[in-house]
């Protein structure tokens, strides 16, 4: 085990996988000499050279498309988006090309590509640089959607993503890069997709969350425990594929579920999970499934206002108590 930051963990896995497999390369804006604006590629240029660590023009449609081409020809590109918000520029490449090619060519062409980058609040980056866009990619079949919430999760899930033969949208969170945690030193350490992580076991309510809200939920769990309220916290890790089994089992036990995400509440992934719970565990519910998500409002530049839009840590306890009919 080593203590690493989230960004270090990501950089190390990229380097390890590039060492092991010549087909793996990385490209993106300012990733070579600059090492990426969040240092996730720092030092890679020196070790692997400019053929495998490539700066790109400011054209997401262009270089994501190049990634799809490279992947279809046998390489394993890691494409870094400086902000995941910029994926909008490459939507056709991602959802119409990468997501569909393997299917439409009868399985003869694979797209082993990772599109990774950061998103979310925390730096006052305003409306076009602070969104949480993962829900958009869940709707179209063909891409996997990954949400690491700690350094070790980032390491284990990124390795699985790079080795996956399908396009993976790998959503990092900008406010997690500096967080530290233990990461296994094993260069084969990986976390399978579709296996949720039970962060904390509890019996009274299930809180399903990812990214920043995992730690926030843990903080609230301690406060709630003092009031004899024992919550279970589950991080789905990957939204596509989704580990329905673990969540349904938990809700059958607790009878209450709260989904917390930074993405907008309306049509966010919390709605998908809430609906699934009602379809499969309706008779086990003692209260409506609650969702906490960002207000239907563009993320503001002002940091104070930014916080006013997304769910706050205390909102988790309020929601838990609401499902328990405790005021």
């Amino acid at each position, binding site marked *: 085990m080593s203590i690493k930051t989230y960004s270090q963990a990501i950089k190390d896995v990229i380097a390890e996988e590039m060492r092991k497999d010549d087909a793996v390369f990385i490209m993106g804006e300012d990733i070579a000499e600059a090492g990426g604006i969040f240092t996730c590629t720092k030092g890679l240029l020196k070790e692997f050279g400019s053929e495998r660590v490539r700066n790109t023009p400011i054209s997401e449609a262009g270089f994501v498309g190049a990634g799809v081409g490279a992947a279809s020809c046998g390489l394993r590109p890691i494409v870094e988006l400086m902000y995941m918000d910029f994926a909008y520029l490459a939507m056709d490449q991602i959802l119409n090309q990468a997501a569909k090619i393997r299917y439409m060519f009868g399985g003869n062409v694979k797209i082993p590509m990772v599109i990774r980058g950061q998103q979310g609040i925390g730096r006052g980056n305003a409306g076009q640089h602070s969104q949480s866009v993962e829900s958009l990619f869940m709707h179209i079949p063909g891409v996997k959607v990954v949400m690491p919430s700690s350094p070790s999760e980032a390491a284990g899930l990124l390795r699985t993503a790079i080795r996956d033969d399908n396009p993976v949208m790998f959503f990092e969170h900008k406010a997690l890069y500096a967080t530290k945690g233990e990461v296994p030193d094993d260069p084969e350490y990986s976390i399978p997709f579709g296996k949720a992580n039970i962060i904390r076991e509890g019996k009274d309510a299930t809180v399903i969350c990812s990214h920043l809200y995992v730690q926030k939920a843990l903080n609230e769990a301690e406060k709630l425990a003092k009031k004899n309220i024992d919550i279970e916290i589950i991080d789905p890790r990957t939204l596509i594929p989704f580990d329905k089994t673990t969540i349904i089992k938990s809700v059958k036990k607790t009878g209450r579920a709260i989904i917390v995400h930074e993405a907008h509440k309306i049509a966010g992934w919390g709605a998908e999970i809430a609906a699934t719970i009602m379809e499969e565990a309706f008779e086990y519910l*003692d209260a409506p499934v609650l969702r906490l998500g960002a207000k239907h409002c563009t993320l503001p530049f002002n940091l104070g206002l930014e916080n006013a839009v997304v769910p706050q840590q205390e909102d988790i306890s309020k929601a838990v108590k609401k499902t328990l*009919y405790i005021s």
Partner: protein
Amino acid sequence: MITEIIMPKQGLQMTEGAITKWLKNVGDDVKNGEAIIEIETDKAALEIEAQGDGKLLKKIHDEGETVAVSKVIGLIGADTDDISKYDTEPISESKPDTKNAVIENTLKSSMPQNSNGRIFITPRAKKLAIDNKINFSNITGTGPNGLIIEKNITPSLLNKESFLAFKGIRKTIAERMIESQNTYAQAYHKISINMNSIINLRESLKKSNINISYNDIFIKICSKALLENPILNSTLENDRIILKHYANIGFAVAVDNGLFVPVVHNAETLSLEEISNKSKNLIKKARNGSLGIADFSSGTFTISNLGMYDLDEFTAIINPPQSAILAIGAIKKQVVAINDEVCIRPIATLCLTYDHRIIDGAPAAAFLKRVKELSEMKTGGAL
């Protein structure tokens, strides 16, 4: 190949049956002819046998559900069989031919409702209540607007109130008893019998290793008395009274959640030992729920014996379409006057309920007197 498990039609009146117990789990191997499910109709409980080999692939209906005759209850087959077409068998598709067309959930239908007809309870609390057979209609909910929530279903409720499903055998008994009370002019006669002769008869047979019950003896005695007094053995049908010159004598057997009245047919032609063998077999079948339709059909008269509960005497309600029923109390030693002497004798009190629309007091009394005579005959009476 998929073999469907079908709700069978047992008797003309049967329109639906309730599933009381699945004897197999999904995935279990099933052999042709093996009992796979227990059902209860409004008359009887019975087991359904598998009509093919394979695995139990699917339970389309669960325990507690009521299913119309000829509907598919479950599926037997191989793992490779495609059973997707059975995934959503719409309940509205069922076409039972009579008034009982609605398939209802046992528990839900028997659950009392408040005056608005709607109880607000969370799904979890409802499941908990139903699983524990807790009647939740009177619980005060502490959720918003009185919503009953999980914590309101407390363990202390477990023993204070519970409910039983009111359908199947129980419902049929209720309907028949009400029909009887509302239609028949029920009148009562009582008579005390010196049981000495009958006790002696039983004891002497016991010495020859023949075990007969008091019930068997009264079936024999009544069969004789009924043929001599056929009005007691009759049925009112529209503008005529049908007198029956044979004695099909039913006797009440208590079972969980109800009672059965299996019938010893043509008791007048049977020896006491034959009656005894038949009644033992019927009692066994009643207790394990395997009585067939024929076993409780066409009774002409009924005996109910609660002597084992130490009752002095009791009255019974006539079992339609019969016209009389005999209730037998316990045998108790009593002080009686015989030939102006004070004696102690084993006495049982019989109470006859008869339909005064067609049976007057005198013939009913004559019948009872004849039963008394036959019972008290030193030689073992009619036997």
